[in-house]
C-alpha cells in the first residue's frame, strides 16, 4: 500500500465497515479524491485531505484508484461472524 514507506504518519479513520487511511506526507492536496467521492466522505484540511464523514463511505474506491500520490487507501472490513463465515459454510 506504499504505506510502509510512510508508516510513521498514517491517519486512519474507520467505522465497523470501512477503514480509510490517509498519508498526509504523501498527499499533495490535489482534491481529486475529494471531488470524485460520490458521497462526500472527504474534505480538505488546509493543504491536505481529511475524512469528513466516514460513515457515508460506500467503498467505491474512486478515491483510492485515482489518487496519484499513494495517499489514500480504503479497506472494507471483514465483519466477523457475518458474510465471511457465511461463505465458509
Amino acid at each position: 500500500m506504499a504505506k510502509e514507506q510512510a508508516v510513521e504518519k498514517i491517519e486512519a479513520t474507520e467505522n465497523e465497515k470501512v477503514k480509510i487511511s490517509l498519508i498526509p506526507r504523501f498527499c499533495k492536496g490535489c482534491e481529486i479524491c475529494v471531488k470524485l467521492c460520490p458521497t462526500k466522505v472527504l474534505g480538505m484540511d488546509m493543504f491536505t485531505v481529511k475524512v469528513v464523514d466516514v460513515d457515508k463511505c460506500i467503498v467505491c474506491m474512486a478515491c483510492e484508484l485515482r489518487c496519484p500520490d499513494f495517499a489514500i487507501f480504503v479497506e472494507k472490513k471483514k465483519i466477523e461472524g457475518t458474510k465471511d463465515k457465511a461463505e465458509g459454510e
Partner: protein
Amino acid sequence: MAFNYDPYIRSGKLPHIWCPGCTFGIVFKSLLRAVDSMQIPKDDIALVSGIGCASRLPGYVDWNTLHTAHGRAIPFATGLKMARPDKKVLVVSGDGDATAIGGNHFIHACRRNIDITVIVLNNFIYGMTGGQHSPTTPVGHMATTMPFGNVDPTFNIPALAKGAGATWVGRGTAYHVPALDKLIVGAVEHKGLSVLEIINGCPTTHGRRNKFRTPTDMLLWMKETALPVSAFEKFPAEKTVGKFPIGVLYKGEAKEYSETYFAMVEHLQKKQEGRGD
C-alpha cells in the same frame, strides 16, 4: 484487500516529483497492479524511459530501470531486448518524448515488431520544460510556444503506430482505471510491439492554461470524452464528434523480431554444425 504497492516501490523514493493532481501517479499505480497480476518476477522486467515528467516513472519502480536521453528510450530498450530476448522490456514515454524527438525510433520499433511494450503517457504538452506545445496539443489550445492558440496539427498516435506496423495498439485514460489495468496487461502480454497511449492530464502546464480549473476537471473531461472502441465504432459519425475511442484499437499478426532473428541464428548455426561433420 487493498493492493500492496510496497514491494514495487523503491523505498524512500516517495513522494514522487509529480505536481499535485498530475495524473501520472494514477497510471503509475495501474502499471504496478497490472504487472503484478501477471506475476512477472522483478528481476525479469526492465522499464526504460526517455526524458520528461512521464519519463521519471522508472526511478520509483523496483525493477531494472533505465532513464535515458530525450526521445531515445526505444533504442536503448531494443538493445536490452536483443541482448536478453527472454526478458520483458517496457518503455514509458511522454507524448513529446515518444512522438516528437523520438518519433523515428517509435515508428521503427513498430516496423520491427520487436516484443517491447511502449506506453505513451500523453498529456498533450511538454510538461517537464514548462508547457510548450507537443505533437498532440489540440489545435487552439494555449501553450507557451503557441501563445495565440496552437495551429500545429496533431498526431493520432494509434493511427501512426498502426501505419508504421505495430501489431497491438490501444488507448486508455487515467480516469478509466480498472479498464487501464486490463489494457496494460493486454499490451504486455502481446508478443510483438505494443503501443498503449494513455490519456493524461498535466494541470500545471496545460490544464490551468486551458480552462481545466482543477486536476479533477481533466479527469472528468476524459470520462466524458472517451468511448469504448466498440461503442465508438457503432455510433453514427455525428455522435462521435469530439470523442475518442479507448480500448484495444488494433491487433495484427506478424512475426516478432527477436524470435525471427534468433531463429535465423539457430538455423545458421545448425547449418554450420552440419557442415562441420
